[in-house]
């Protein structure tokens, strides 16, 4: 019996080793013979020796489209493209981890939102793209992408990212309910509150309207819009906090008014963007304040019960007549400074995915960045209007994340009434000052 036990042991270990050896770490792509020059294919120069390009980002429709375009470059000889997707928080944690130590970067193409570009750029971990942009400006018509979009990825004059998509927060509403109750599309939050009061007793609804105030970072995003609309920003020029001044308090007070009129303390926790999207699609809400990237399902009858009646409008203005309450977000593609591959090759792969021909096809999936492309999703006008007249982008100064952190700690308490707006903002300012002093931004 001992013999069979050893036999079994050998068999198991052998099978195991076979399995481990037989599975390559990354699979080689199949080579396809491309006979005619295909504008949709990847047209980058063939590198001298085999290279592996790793893409790292989080997935949603338009980004998956871009990633697929980049994967086509794997059909070029000697190039292999690895696409790695994780969720948003995990991607950022990993990138911080990988780039902070200064060693070789495992990633070559980084998908970043403007907040990350700003952070990583400030830390000096990204490859400056100015020279490459100048070199290929004409070939890929980079002037087609708005200069303002590049601005969001620029730190101290160095451009660190190529704009890939535009995003913002705007309104999506049930035009049938609005018609039924005689409501005009709200242009500011006073009108939003009025609409909530009219819709308060509609039996099919959980709540008339929600903003996402379910998480600490969600409060902070909305607060930026309200604060700026009321005329203040996070930090003064000398980096002392400005958000707890009278304008900031006015903005936060207006947020609380909206919460009380439309959501109630109950709606606070139940209002995340994904949930709101589903609830609007299934008839539980009349209108919502949502990301443009979350709206793809709303005009798809395969997903939404109300696809034919959901319409879009620009974000409402927190202060009547002032800036619209949607901040401008752009997602970028960038290259880490410590990439193990030739930055120019990586840049070209990105360019191939963002060229006019690709973005023309990509416009079916999301808001692409080239101005020359006219077609777009049904919410494109609302998106464009909000970006044009909205509160704009986050500052790229490295002290801003510290202000954000302070705000995230205390803003949510305003919703439940545990703190007054002034108290919350003062507490946040205190936390910011402590941290900013410790990190050397304040004396």
């Amino acid at each position, binding site marked *: 019996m001992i013999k069979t036990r050893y036999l079994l042991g050998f068999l198991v270990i052998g*099978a195991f080793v076979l*399995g481990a050896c037989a599975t390559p770490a990354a699979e080689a792509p199949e080579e396809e013979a491309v006979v005619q020059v295909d504008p949709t294919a990847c047209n980058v120069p063939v590198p001298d020796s085999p290279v592996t390009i790793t893409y790292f980002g989080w997935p949603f429709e338009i980004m998956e489209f871009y990633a697929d375009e980049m994967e086509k470059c794997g059909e070029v000889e000697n190039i292999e493209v690895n696409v790695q997707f994780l*969720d948003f928080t995990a991607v950022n944690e990993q990138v911080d*981890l990988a780039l902070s*130590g200064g060693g070789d970067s495992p990633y070559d193409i980084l998908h970043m939102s403007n907040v990350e570009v700003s952070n990583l750029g400030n830390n000096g971990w990204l490859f400056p793209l100015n020279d490459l942009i100048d070199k290929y400006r004409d070939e890929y018509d980079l002037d087609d992408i708005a200069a303002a979009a590049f601005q969001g990825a620029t730190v101290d004059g160095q451009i660190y990212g190529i704009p890939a998509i535009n995003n913002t927060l705007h309104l999506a509403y049930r035009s049938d309910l609005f018609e039924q109750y005689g409501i005009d599309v709200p242009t500011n939050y006073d009108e939003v509150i009025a609409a909530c009061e009219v819709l308060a007793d509609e039996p099919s609804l959980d709540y008339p309207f929600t903003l996402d105030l379910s998480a600490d970072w969600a409060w902070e995003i909305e607060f930026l819009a309200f604060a700026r609309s009321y005329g203040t920003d996070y930090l003064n020029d000398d980096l002392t906090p400005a958000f707890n001044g009278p304008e900031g308090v006015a903005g936060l007070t207006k947020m609380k008014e909206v919460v009380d009129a439309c959501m109630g303390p109950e709606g606070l926790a139940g209002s995340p963007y994904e949930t709101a999207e589903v609830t609007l699609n299934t008839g539980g809400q009349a209108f919502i304040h949502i990301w443009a990237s979350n709206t793809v399902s709303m005009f798809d009858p395969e997903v939404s019960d109300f696809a034919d009646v959901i319409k879009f409008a620009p974000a409402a203005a927190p202060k009547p007549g002032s800036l619209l309450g949607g901040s401008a*977000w752009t997602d970028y593609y960038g290259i880490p400074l410590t990439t193990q591959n030739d930055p120019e090759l990586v840049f070209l792969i990105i360019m191939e995915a963002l060229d006019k021909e690709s973005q023309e096809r990509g416009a079916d999936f999301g808001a692409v960045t080239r101005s020359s492309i006219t077609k777009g999703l049904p919410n494109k006008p609302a998106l464009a209007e909000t970006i044009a007249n909205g509160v704009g982008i986050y500052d790229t100064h490295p002290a801003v994340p510290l202000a954000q952190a302070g705000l995230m700690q205390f803003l949510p308490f305003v919703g439940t009434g545990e703190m007054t707006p002034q108290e919350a903002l003062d507490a946040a300012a205190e936390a910011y000052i402590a941290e900013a002093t410790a990190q050397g931004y304040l004396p």
Partner: protein
Amino acid sequence: MRPIKHPIARFFLHLALWIVVLTSSIPFFWTFLQSLKTKKQATSRTPIFLFKPTLDNFSKLWLKSVPDNLEVLAFGLIAILLTLILIAVFAKRLPVSRAVVNGFIVVALVLILWAIPKFVNTDTFYDYFINTVIVSVGVVLVSITVASLSAFALARYVGLAGVVLILLALAFRSLPRISFALPYYWMGQITGLYDTHFLLILTLAAVNQPFTIYILRSFFMDIPREIEESAMIDGASRLGAFVRVIVPIMWPGIIATALFTLVLAYHEYLLVRILASSNWTIAVAMTQYLGGVSVSGSLPLQSAAAVSGAIPLLIVVLIFQKQLVKGLSAGAVKG
């Protein structure tokens, strides 16, 4: 414990068991239903229990493109698996020993896993699944072997060194996972073993040692010293006595611990994410479907990922719980 014979008591017993089983498993069965729905059906405000199921979510997860002869291939695969199951069930009647049968089944499964990509165009999720199998099994083999020896020593040795070892092990285990992030990333880069199966197996085995040692030690303490001592009097070395006498007695305990180690390795998220960039396990890979800020995610796809991850483990548990249920061979452990 002798079974309760009284019929009314038996009825309440089964009722209680059913309530408990349902609370444990209903969320999973609901998720399974969700994974067979379209996005519209899955997010409906009123839960839908009767619907036309679709395998779209699973094929989106596992396959890059759906081949035309999918049904033929699927039936073929099911036929082969059924044959293996029949072999396993009727092993007694076959002229070869049990061990050979088990070995054959294992080899057959490995060959199937290796051959599947040759027939269908599998997506990266399949590769990640293979990684998961390799890493989990590797961790179990390494961890259990090494930990049983140590746990046995801890159960038998009374002295300061034993206490120190346990304290150190528990101190290691108390460290939050996040503290491992930076040191392990650096370690992976410096040794050049970043993104390899070897590093993953070794690291996960190491991180789980305190847990495994501690549990095995508790099981070993249950066995009286006289058992290996009488084997040693008969001329066996301590190691020999351990392998030949103690281990067979302890088998259900070892199986139970091996199951936990398998589950822990299978579930490991943070360390795999840190130590690998293309060699992920499915615990990491499935998080890409979770959605998040400004990203909708697809509920049925998430459910399909959760179910895909759970089913292999469930099958393993179903196979090995027989060992647990068999109980100790009577007479080996006397009062």
